[in-house]
């Protein structure tokens, strides 16, 4: 099937790009242009695959786990590719980000590409707004995670020489904080859009269902990390640890909760 062939080819491009990025940090080489080109090629093929499937099924990639993973691999790599392209100083953070993406790609490979049923509550513009905000949020946090990973690796004495070319920890900390701030704005928007949708779809804007609860806890953790940074003048590696915590919570909320819970947030009855 064209759609899956495109997807598998895109994944190969991502994996070669990511592996090259990791090896280039380990061996202290700099084939950065090739890494970026491969990422862009992967994104182009992946976009084509998503478009073909969208056209075939008549709905976007947001119903089955396969679709949700695929579209998030796409949006997260798009966010990271943009950061990689624009902020040269942190390109080595690809060695932190790409292994995370490999895990998601592995999960995507083992999930079933069969089609799901579009719940009746999905016929609304709020679907796109809610999901779009969520994607920007997670993308911003992923870029911050790459930077935080560099800070933590250096703090633990891993690859210090290889990562010495990056700016000082304080500078990286500042940059990561900017991405987390962007994340907070978009997570706030995501929650607001989700509440509007929930009001329309289920007659309540908030009901503490598992997904809502975990998304709110993620939001609080993000607010906590920004406040703690100011209130306690956190050292960069402490700030970095909080970033990882926010990412783990966000990741579990996005991909873990819908998996283990059969609560109404799925919308299909």
């Amino acid at each position: 099937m064209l759609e899956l062939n495109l997807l598998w080819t895109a994944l190969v491009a991502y994996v070669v790009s990511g592996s090259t990025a990791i090896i280039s940090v380990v061996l202290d080489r700099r084939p950065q242009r090739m890494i970026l080109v491969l990422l862009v090629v992967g994104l182009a093929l992946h976009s084509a695959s998503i478009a073909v499937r969208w056209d075939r099924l008549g709905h976007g990639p947001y119903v089955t786990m396969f679709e949700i993973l695929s579209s998030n691999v796409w949006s997260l790599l798009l966010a990271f590719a943009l950061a990689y392209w624009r902020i040269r100083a942190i390109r080595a953070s690809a060695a932190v980000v790409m292994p995370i993406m490999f895990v998601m790609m592995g999960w995507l490979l083992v999930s079933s590409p069969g089609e799901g049923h579009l719940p009746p509550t999905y016929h609304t513009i709020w679907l796109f707004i809610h999901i779009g905000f969520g994607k920007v949020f997670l993308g911003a946090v992923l870029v911050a995670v790459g930077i935080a990973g560099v800070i933590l690796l250096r703090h633990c004495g891993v690859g210090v020489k290889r990562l010495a070319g990056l700016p000082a920890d304080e500078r990286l900390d500042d940059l990561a904080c900017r991405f987390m701030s962007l994340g907070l704005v978009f997570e706030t928007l995501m929650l607001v859009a989700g509440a509007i949708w929930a009001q329309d779809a289920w007659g309540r804007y908030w009901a503490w269902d598992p997904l809502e609860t975990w998304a709110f806890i993620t939001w609080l953790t993000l607010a906590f990390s920004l406040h703690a940074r100011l209130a306690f003048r956190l050292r960069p590696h402490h700030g970095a640890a909080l970033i990882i915590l926010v990412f783990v919570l966000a990741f579990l909320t996005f991909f873990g909760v819908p998996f283990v819970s059969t609560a109404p947030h799925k919308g299909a009855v």
Partner: protein
Amino acid sequence: MIASPSVGRLARLAGASGGANRWLERLASLKLTAYLIAVLGAGVLMAYLSETRTTWSLVVPLALIALNLGAAVATNGVFRRNLPLLVFHLALIAVIALVALGRLTYLKGQIELAEGEEFAGDLVSHDAGPLHWWRLDRIHLVNHGFSIDYAAGVKRGPTRNEVGYAVDDGRPQRTVIGDNEPLVLLGYRFYTSFNKGFAPAFLWHAKQGEALFGTVHLPAYPIHEYRQARDWTLPGTSTTVWTQLQFDEVILDPDKPSSFRLPRHYKLVVRVGEMRAELQPGESIELPDGRLEYRGLGSWMGYTVFSDWTTPWLLAAAALAAVSLALHFWNKFSSRPWNPEHAADA
């Protein structure tokens, strides 16, 4: 900044006595904020995981956060220098206050209406804030029937339900609602739900008094496909009637697309004590207190009714929070590069 004169005066007023001032400043501590946010997180988890209603674990930290923030707004110069940051935090307080007001005045209930039935103000179940002003009695709502298509695998498609409505003695009107489109009357939002099913209709001719018409809402279909029976009590008596709908035809086909409809061939079984009867429309059974006549089969629809006047204000406050937060970060980050030594790089 707009707020500075009055806020400044407030801080000075608070400073009139040194002790009170110190107290206020301590209450305004940014460290306390971080702890309180953590406590709120723990409170959310506690309410989420506990079996019983644990509202206090949310209310207490939220109230403390509001105090902490109020004190900070009064004493912390950051808020006077930074209008977007001030607006953001005030909007957060507004959200907390509105949610609290909403909890005091909301209504959320369930309604069931058979086809052709008018809503008479009866809620099957409901949850309401202590200050909810009941105005449901001014609303006339009639269910004119619905259609729902199902995809293969009995996957529900959009619900389209025609309803008639009027407020007080207003002109009756008709519209179609379903899924994301509620009917909004006097601030009450009526939504169709996935709860719906079959409703046999009866006329009860009591020996004394007028004949009464009523419908029996059998358990929701297709969720309770194999449990299409229930007990009900004849009005004005203590007689219990067990009513069952039996049919063999496949209505919602798991293998192909289909639509919700009434069964074409069915048996309606009625049991009162030892007596058992199968009734066709127009047939009746004689009982000690009167005659029960079966009129025919229809459908019923379950509705959710929701009322909370705060929702538009909540949306406005939340949107204001998001916009002012974005503005704050924009001002903060655009004022200096993250990596001054390589500014060109960023």
